[in-house]
């Protein structure tokens, strides 16, 4: 517990950076359909094809106290009843793989498209 850097540290950092790059890359090949999936309490609640949205509109999730704003090619939390508003501060999601979550309201919005086009990946308990 004296030295700041040892050899294995560089190896660890290099491996983590590589994993990171591998996870990031697919996001830059998300051509074609861009679909937002809105999850409520762990189940996909609604899918919105953002590539066909012409005019902005809002989605009210009354039970969760959440309002989502849908725009051409983007989606985001507009307002929420949660205490910390982290979901609103996440801003607009525009790329496949982009994620916004609101833990208190148990809602998540994920963009699928390109490499991220897959079936429902819902964990059940």
């Amino acid at each position, binding site marked *: *517990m004296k030295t700041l850097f040892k050899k294995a540290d560089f190896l660890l950092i290099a491996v*983590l950076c590589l994993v990171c790059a591998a996870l990031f890359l697919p996001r830059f090949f998300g051509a074609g359909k861009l679909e937002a999936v809105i*999850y409520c309490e762990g*189940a996909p609640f609604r899918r919105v094809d953002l590539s066909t949205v012409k005019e902005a509109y809002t989605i009210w999730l009354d039970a969760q106290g959440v309002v989502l704003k849908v725009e051409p090619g983007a989606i985001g939390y507009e307002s929420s009843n949660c205490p910390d508003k*982290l979901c609103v501060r996440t801003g607009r999601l525009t790329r496949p793989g982009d994620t916004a*979550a609101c833990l208190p309201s148990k809602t*998540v919005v994920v963009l699928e498209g390109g490499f991220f086009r897959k079936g429902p*990946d*819902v*964990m059940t308990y």
Partner: protein
Amino acid sequence: MARKTNNRKTALLGVLGAQALALSFLENIFPALPGLPPGAKPGFSNIVTMFTAATAGLGEALAITVIKSVFAGVTRGLSAFIMSFAGGILSTFTMFFLLRLKSSPFGIAGVSVASAAAHNLGQLLAAAVLTGTSSVFGYAPVLLLFAVATGLVTGTVLKVLMPALRKQSRYFLK
């Protein structure tokens, strides 16, 4: 005599706990960094947790983690408590294990980066359970990159602060 030492240890742990809370509070008043998921924080209080894990022990470091989570819960709500607790416990076990490795290949920086990554993993797991979907793992790449950066910073700060923190401990335990 033994009792007196115990009291002193408790007092030292109290001071370390207070320092960890002060650092947590400090990073909460910073605005969210652009490009990062809001709520991603530098984890300065890990400096204290790591010092405690290295010099006192696992139980003491876990105690600090629990105090931190309770503070998060009181000030920011139940989901903040769960997130802080899940990340804190996993990162404390990780750093303790890496610190106790015989002739450890890792320096302070490596332990710090690994524990930061473990912290994020714990939080993602907690978030997945809270929201009921694994889709929160979309945050993983950004968080991982951020963990490497913050781990390097907190590790370096700990290295610099080490003499001061040791002096503080000696003041209580001697």
